[in-house]
């Protein structure tokens, strides 16, 4: 801790602190997932928690996403507050039926009688050379489903805080965590903790253009904005944070100020979160726009294995800079 009362920690440590704090606060909270116990988590997020909380609360499960996510939903229905870790979003496809048909619908199907307060964490992101089958960006799939609240932890602050608030929610919450950020360090206030999970956040104020992104795009957009600043372009960066329901107010207020919007995300461009945000901007504040809304999304191919091709398949800071300069006709 330095004298400003901040603490330098990794993204991994931020998640671990969040889990530990949640488990200490509420004994109904428990963690279940593949290799979360004895192995310490596929990405070492839960390392040491088994020793601290015991096998009743740090629960290894069989390799059956449909089975253990369903079990988590059952536990939630019966009054527990499970944190279900799906190792990566790629495997969550096997649990889709449980998530979509049970977690998301039971409140509705029971006429409001059955809340499902389950929190499902999924590792995701591209950039670790895991090839096509393990490099999916399924945020748009989940953001499509009524009955879910879908969060994306693109910053250390949210890695530290979103879980705590999500566990207070009476309904199912999906949290996307970005594995390529796990070793990245950032300063957090020593007293960092629960954060709001209803609003998008302006991470950098600017007046020339709104760069709207989430998850893996957040730090890239901030890097791009810093570079753009050096050539006189003052970009505002918004982290959507909540992919469902979208916080329109923050988006609209920003675009009303800058009159230009660039949407950035790693998911394939067709029918992604940017598509939705773009449509809502056009529907609601068309007459505030000084340029067409633009999107930078993933190239629509199975994500390649070779590093240079993998890099080329998703938006990079240089792509953001080029696009912004073009939108602003900046030489």
């Amino acid at each position, binding site marked *: 801790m330095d004298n400003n009362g901040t603490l330098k920690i990794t993204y991994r440590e931020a998640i671990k602190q969040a889990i530990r704090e949640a488990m200490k606060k509420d004994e109904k909270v428990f963690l279940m997932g593949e290799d979360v116990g004895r192995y310490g988590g596929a990405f070492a997020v839960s390392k040491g928690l088994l020793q601290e909380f015991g096998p009743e609360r740090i629960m290894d499960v069989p390799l059956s996403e449909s089975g253990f996510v369903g079990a988590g939903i059952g536990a939630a229905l019966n009054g527990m507050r499970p944190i279900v870790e799906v190792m990566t979003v790629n495997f969550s496809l096997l649990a889709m039926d449980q998530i979509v048909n049970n977690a998301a619908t039971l409140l509705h199907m029971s006429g409001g009688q059955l809340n499902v307060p389950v929190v499902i964490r999924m590792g995701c992101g591209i950039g670790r050379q895991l090839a096509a089958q393990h490099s999916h960006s399924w945020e748009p799939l989940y953001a499509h489903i009524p009955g879910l609240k879908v969060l994306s932890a693109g910053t250390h602050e949210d890695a530290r805080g979103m879980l705590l608030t999500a566990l207070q929610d009476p309904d199912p919450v999906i949290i996307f965590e970005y594995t390529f950020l796990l070793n990245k360090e950032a300063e957090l206030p020593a007293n960092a903790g629960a954060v709001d999970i209803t609003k998008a956040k302006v991470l950098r104020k600017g007046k020339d253009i709104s760069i709207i992104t989430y998850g893996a795009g957040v730090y890239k957009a901030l890097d791009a904005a810093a570079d753009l600043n050096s050539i006189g372009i003052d970009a505002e960066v918004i982290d959507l944070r909540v992919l469902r329901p979208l916080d329109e107010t923050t988006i609209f207020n920003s675009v009303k100020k800058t*009159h230009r919007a660039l949407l950035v995300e790693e998911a394939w461009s067709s029918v992604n979160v940017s598509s939705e945000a773009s449509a809502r901007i056009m529907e609601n504040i*068309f*007459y*505030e*726009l*000084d*340029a067409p809304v633009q999107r930078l999304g993933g190239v629509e191919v199975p994500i390649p294995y070779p590093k240079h091709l993998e890099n080329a398949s998703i938006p990079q800071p240089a792509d953001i800079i080029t696009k912004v300069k*073009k*939108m602003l*006709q900046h030489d």
Partner: protein
Amino acid sequence: MIEFQMPSLGADMEAGTLAEWLVKPGDLVKRGDVIAVVDTQKGLIDIEVFDEGIIHELLIKEKEKVPVGTVMALIASDKEPVVKQEEKMPAKITEEKKPVEKLPVTEMRHGIKVSPLAKRIAVEKGIDLNLIKGTGEGDAITKEDVERAIVENIAPKEERKIDSTESIRMAVAAAMSKSNREIPHYYLETKVDMSKALVWLSEANKQRSVKQRLLPVVLLLKAVAKALTEVPELNGYWENGLQQKDDINIGFVVSLRSGGVMIPAIHHADKKSIDELMASLNDIIPRTRAMKLRSSELSESTITVTNLGEGNVETVYGIIYPPQVAIIGFGSIVEQPWAETGMLDVRPVLNITLSADHRATDGATGSRFLMTVKNYLDKPAEL
């Protein structure tokens, strides 16, 4: 609810300023009523309504300048609105089915790329977007461009008062430049011996009072109108292909004493008798010179005739008035040597030219048309 829009009064018109409303909400209007006066480059024009109903709301204030196509008023109709216009018309003019707002003249406005925000600001500040060069992506006009225009004081539309002579000059310039730029003209010419026509005319005039006397030009108009019924390809517009028109509305070029020309339409020239055509000319020419035309007269001509009249040069090659596809030029009738059946004689001769749009028709069509006109003038009794 029927939308009453700012009509287009010619290919060169982009906007008009509402000078005066002649109706108020609650008034009953019927087809052909003049309900507004609009100030255009061509002076104050009476604007007619093409529907029947009760004025519901006047959306545009007097002195406001709005682009062609802007909804100016809403008219409540108890019958089917807009699309069923034909049914509401009296039976005898059912062919006249083209309301003014259908005219195709917004090309230039459509060509301008402007951001929604820039457009909004321009409207609020009365900035004419036609005068601004865009610097955004794809040369779109952006907020910054409009703001610069405000600072640089590109005069708001209302303040830019040009006298009517100058503005007519500009309108002619715009239409003719567009025509020469876009239309591949071809030119045909023929000579007509007018002796029979002039004899017929002087006989006819003997039976008419001085006021009703006919001028040679009505014969020419009548011959053109009849020839167009036989060669209809020249009567229409070029808009993504040739759009032939059923009505034959001859635009007649009138030169203004102060300079410039206007082209009022003589509606249904083919259905008018010689005397009715003469009456139309006697009515429309003084009104044109006084700049007192109705909107339908300015916008509905389907072909143009330019007639130089006596004491002028023998031949005129016209420039087509877009989106029309042809213009017919009559020179003055002068005595010329005339060879016929191996003999040389002196006859009153008229040079007739046709300038036509080669996208729409070919020389063979044009030739057929000119020869038809010629034949009619050879047999004036058939007119």
